[in-house]
């Protein structure tokens, strides 16, 4: 009896996930048709050969472009599942290889940024909530407005100028050890960290005003136990809902930050491919970035089910991202 609702929730989650994955693969494949012009023309153009009708026709046949699209889609999907994402129009290298080379760099940047956000938001949120409307709380509010108003790539440029060009403390760009990770991480995560700190503060204050916290006090529990077991636990489940959105923003932001810092990651690969109209690489990078986002959201959903017993009983609704 205790299991049934939880299983039902997991099943619903799985069904939605399946549907989403199917649609993502379809849309990613469809990019081929969304792109202006015939893919064969694009390839031949990219290879700067003369696109004679003969050559175009030959290439169309070789790529299977003359077959009906459902057939092409299934073919593409089958190959993608085996890890074959085609070859780059520009360099001829397998897309899977290109992505594998770049994936680690993006993962490293994303992980460092998540750690920064986690640490900084917890610290600022707790401090601000300790004395609402106090000096720190007011300061955090203004700082959050300010950092939200400076786009990450602009912050990155300023950081490069101050800490790399002028002071010479850190590398200007590239990926070469821990020192090179610092500036891109700050550029990517600072704004999100302070905003999350503000949200954590609001959640904490909201939970602290709840009857169950006052009742825990009435029971004679120590303040530290009240904070850890009753306040933080409930505030964190509230915070968790925005973590999925945060990951999405990081992946989008990485596109710019990686370009600014010449960070050899997936985001930069995607930008290069978009500018060079390198369709297979665009497809591959979009697919991987989107799967990472979907995975993060799935993880958040599962964690939420674990932390909130009510969700295990209620059917999973659409969660609002703020």
């Amino acid at each position, binding site marked *: 009896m205790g299991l049934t609702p939880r299983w039902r929730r997991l099943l619903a989650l799985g069904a939605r996930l399946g549907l989403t994955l199917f649609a993502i693969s379809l849309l990613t494949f469809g990019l081929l048709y969304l792109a202006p012009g015939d893919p064969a023309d694009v390839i031949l153009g990219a290879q700067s050969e003369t696109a004679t009708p003969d050559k175009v026709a030959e290439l169309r046949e070789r790529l299977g472009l003359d077959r009906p699209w459902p057939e092409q889609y299934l073919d593409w999907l089958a190959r993608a599942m085996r890890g074959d994402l085609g070859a780059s129009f520009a360099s001829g290298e397998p897309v899977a290889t290109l992505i594998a080379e770049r994936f680690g760099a993006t993962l490293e940047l994303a992980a460092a940024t998540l750690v920064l956000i986690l640490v900084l938001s917890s610290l600022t949120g707790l401090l601000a909530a300790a004395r609402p409307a106090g000096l720190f709380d007011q300061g955090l509010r203004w700082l959050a407005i300010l950092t939200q108003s400076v786009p990450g790539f602009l912050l990155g440029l300023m950081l490069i100028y101050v800490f790399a060009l002028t002071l010479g403390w850190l590398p200007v760009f590239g990926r070469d050890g821990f020192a090179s990770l610092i500036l891109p991480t700050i550029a990517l995560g600072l704004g999100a960290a302070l905003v999350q700190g503000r949200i954590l503060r609001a959640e904490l204050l909201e939970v602290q005003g709840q*009857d169950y916290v006052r009742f825990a006090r009435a*029971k*004679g*529990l120590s303040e530290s136990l009240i904070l850890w*077991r009753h306040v933080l636990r409930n505030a964190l*489940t509230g915070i968790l809902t925005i973590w999925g959105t945060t990951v999405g923003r990081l992946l989008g932001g990485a596109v710019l930050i990686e370009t600014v810092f010449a960070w050899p990651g997936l985001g930069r690969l995607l930008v290069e491919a978009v500018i060079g109209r390198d369709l297979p690489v665009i497809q591959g990078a979009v697919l991987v970035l989107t799967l990472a986002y979907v995975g993060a959201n799935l993880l958040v959903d599962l964690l939420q089910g674990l932390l909130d*017993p*009510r969700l295990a*009983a209620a059917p999973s609704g659409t969660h609002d991202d703020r």
Partner: protein
Amino acid sequence: MSREQSLSQPRLEATGIEVVVATRGGERCLLAGLDLRVESGEILGLCGSSGAGKTLTALTLGGLLPPPLRWRAGYIRVAGRLLEPGLVQEWREIRGRGVFVLFQSPGLALNPRLRIGLQIAETLVSAHGLARRPATREAARLLERVGLTAATTRAYPFQLSGGMRQRVLIAIAMGLRPSVVIADEPTTGLDPARRDAILELLRELVADTDAALLMISHDLEALAHLSRRIGVLDAGRLVEIAPTAELFARPRAVATQQLVASLAALRAADDQPVD
């Protein structure tokens, strides 16, 4: 503890309690000069209509006033300790085993994300220094004591009805064995049968632990069943306090007269004989 001793030294004594709320235009007085005493093993009823200051009284005497509200003057004596406005550490030591407040809405008083067993057991761990495991066993026993099953320890609050949640709060009180219990509208939203069951449990709580119970309610009839003395709150003042029979026979304050009259009207409407 003998009855004589407890009579000479009331478990709960509040004198000249004033509570104010800070507003933009300064402080506004919400409770003005409240005096009351509750002996060990006694149930004192406190009645009043909405907005009379009932919940405010419960929170003040329980040391739980939230920030915009402030206890400004008077003193409270709980289980032999003297408390004055502005103390923080002393209340931390007294809350729980010294004075315990049963909240008005048990649905909100229980943490929605923790199992019932833990919410009872953590109280026993902190109040009596029990280890986690014996505390959990004791929690199951307490739940059975208040008429729930031992399996309720594994339930979450949202899986219980309002009456069941109120029983959980009483189980916590029974486990705590506090000197003073303050029950704020413990029967709100319950149908008559469940209401009587909860009142009976509160009576048993006092009989079991010899606690002093301050029972706060708008329901004069429920108070009449339980307590030998009843006080009446009106607009933040204790306008009358008298033995139950006398209060009904000769209500002096206007607020008391209104409460007694409306109860009589209700009974007449129900076509029931008055005692």
